[in-house]
């Protein structure tokens, strides 16, 4: 105890200074505000808005063009169907014109017949003619029409399509004559 007394005293004389310093050190002060450099706000906002707007407008345009294409596709499909139907109708006309019975009728009107005799054969390698060619005669004419049905008229169902073409008068010998057409231009064969 006796040894400590002078130390304490010394301490008491020193302490306030140290404490003062410590206090000085421990005190919080407000940090002065430093000036941050910030990107200017307006251009950025504008940039983002432009992107957004471009996206929306692009989408709208894209969608519109798709719709336009869809309209066009529908229209073209309808046109294709119509043209297909027309082509079919024309092909039917050709078929009617190429019917063997029509050709036979036109030919016989011109005085031609399918010969019922064999033809001579010319062998191209030897140049020899074999066979007994016989000229055709009027007796080779074949019937041009199949006989009609044997049903009484009142049982005959009316057909869906017109099947009463004009009978070609036998006097006509012009091979280029067309059968008389029905109102819609589809020649029907002889029946």
């Amino acid at each position, binding site marked *: 105890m006796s040894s400590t007394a002078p130390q304490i005293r010394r301490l008491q004389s020193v302490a306030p200074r140290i404490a003062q310093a410590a206090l000085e050190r421990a005190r919080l002060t407000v940090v002065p505000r430093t000036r941050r450099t910030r990107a200017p706000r307006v251009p950025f906002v504008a940039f983002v808005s432009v992107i957004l707007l471009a996206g929306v407008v692009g989408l709208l345009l894209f969608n519109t063009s798709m719709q336009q294409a869809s309209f066009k596709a529908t229209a073209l499909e309808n046109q294709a169907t119509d043209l297909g139907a027309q082509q079919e109708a024309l092909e039917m006309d050709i078929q009617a014109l190429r019917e063997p019975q029509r050709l036979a009728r036109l030919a016989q009107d011109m005085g031609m017949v399918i010969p019922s005799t064999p033809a001579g054969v010319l062998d191209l390698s030897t140049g020899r003619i074999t066979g007994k060619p016989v000229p055709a005669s009027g007796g080779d004419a074949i019937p041009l029409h199949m006989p009609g*049905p044997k049903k009484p008229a009142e049982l005959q*169902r009316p057909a869906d*399509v017109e099947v009463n073409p004009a009978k070609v008068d036998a006097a006509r010998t012009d091979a280029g004559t067309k059968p008389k057409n029905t109102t819609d231009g589809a020649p029907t064969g002889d029946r």
Partner: protein
Amino acid sequence: MSRPSTLRTRRGTGPRRGSPKLRMQVGFLLIAIVLSVFAGRLVQLQGLDPDSYAQMAAAEGSDHVVLPASRGEILDRNGEPLAETVDGRMIIADPAVTAKVAPQLATVLAKRLGIDYFQTLERLRVEDSRFQYVARQVPASKAEKVVADIRKEFEDEDGRPFAGLTTERDPLRIYPNDDVAANLLGFLGTPKDDGSAQALAGLEASFNKYLSGKDGEATYEVGAGNQIPLGDNTVTPAVDGRNLHLTIDRDLQFYAQRVLQQTVTRAAGKSGIAVIMDSRTGDLLALADYPTYDASDPYRYDDSLYKSSALTDVYEPGSVEKVLTVSSLVDAGLAFKEQKFRVPGQLHRQDRPIGDYWEHGMLRLTLAGIIAKSSNVGTVLAADQFHNGQLRRYLTAYGLGQRTDVGLGGETKGLLPQGAAWTSQVGDRIAFGQSLSVNAVQMAAAVNTIANGGVRIAPSLVQGEATTDKGQKVGSDVASTTRVISADAAHETMLMMERVLDPEEGVAPGAAVPGYRVAGKTGTAQRVGENGGYDGSTTVSFAGFAPADDPRFTIYVVVHSPRPGSGGGSTAGPAFSKLMSYTLRRYGVPPTGGKPNQTPVEW
């Protein structure tokens, strides 16, 4: 819970506000009620029947269409169409709208479409109906045109187009050649309610599945009649029907039908058949029936004509069958062409005498002479050399009594007696072609066996291969070949058949084709009438092939019930000659340059 107090301090509380606690309870109760309604609906949608609701949602604003499969065409051997499908329309009237203008409308329709005026008028005026067919299966371009014109012509006061007529898809089957090959093709009737084809006869019916294909379907979202891009869509593509290629040659078929018609009508016959067959391949180039019908307009004809009588009707072949008997004898080593026979005028067998078609005393004929003169008595004498059952085995190998299965339905297989039914007198009569029945294609294929060097090749009507609705594979690719007689026996039979056309010795000089060697055989058989017995009418026929020494075509012409006194040689012979000349010329077959053989017919 402390918020309301603060709120109250902010807003200030009115005297009529009631207690906050009560308001809270009422509010929560209302929220709970609304949320339970939502929850209940959620359970109903997701738990009870989610699928049907999903479907309903999908159907909203989406369009479902059937993608129809197009029916295959039927083509001849050169690709000429015999039956094809074109786009067609049904025209549908809405009587609620059309009744007011029915007379004018019916006039226009009747004129433009060629339909019956009164029937149309009636349909346009049906009461309490919104849907009436006006016309079915009208070619599409024509139907659309007519309906478009009517819409314009009958527009109402405000200029809106007339809404009483609409069109729907209704494919139309056309037969561009009318009656040519109609007996084979058959036809399609009015489609069934589900839009599928209703095949009523012929190849259309027996190959219906093969020709039909399979419909597809598509579902897509639509807005104002246009498909919405990027919308949901599912497509099952249609599988189109396949084309059926026939072995028939259209122009030859046409000529055969006309020549047959001429032959039958000139002989005052009841009906007739002509078969033209390629000897080497068995292809049927023409199969004509008379009478026949028009496939484009079948309902005007009796439905008994909707068939190929060459396959469905059986008859007794008569003397043409003698070549089968004689060729079997030669093949079995029991006879040869110069073999000598003493042929009496009548042969007395068990139940009744066998005679010839002409009166004669004792003749000394060779086997070739028996064929050339077509002697029943001689044939029976020659056939006596057969062992038991031998002739039957040969005739079975020739294909008699079995279906040819060319691919047409309703074929009758004919009758070759067997077992106890083959008595000795039946055997005698079968030897010269009575007491057995055949169909024409069977018989043509049997005679063609002799043309084809003794090998029977099954006839075919379909080129390549196709499957009938019954699941049978038919066609030239699957045609079977069987050796029936040796090549030597076939050749020897041919030499005897050639004597049939001899102008001096034979019975059918009219069947000759100038410049070519032809082998053939006539037939005149008694016909079985309605009552099951012979009724005095006959079936006359001629079967033959040319060129005889290198056969290319076999032709068989049959005329049923010609006027009395007609014979196979004089009636069917000339038709055979015409058809054979035409066929040889059409296919460019040169004469072989040989001379007909002169095997003696008498000794």
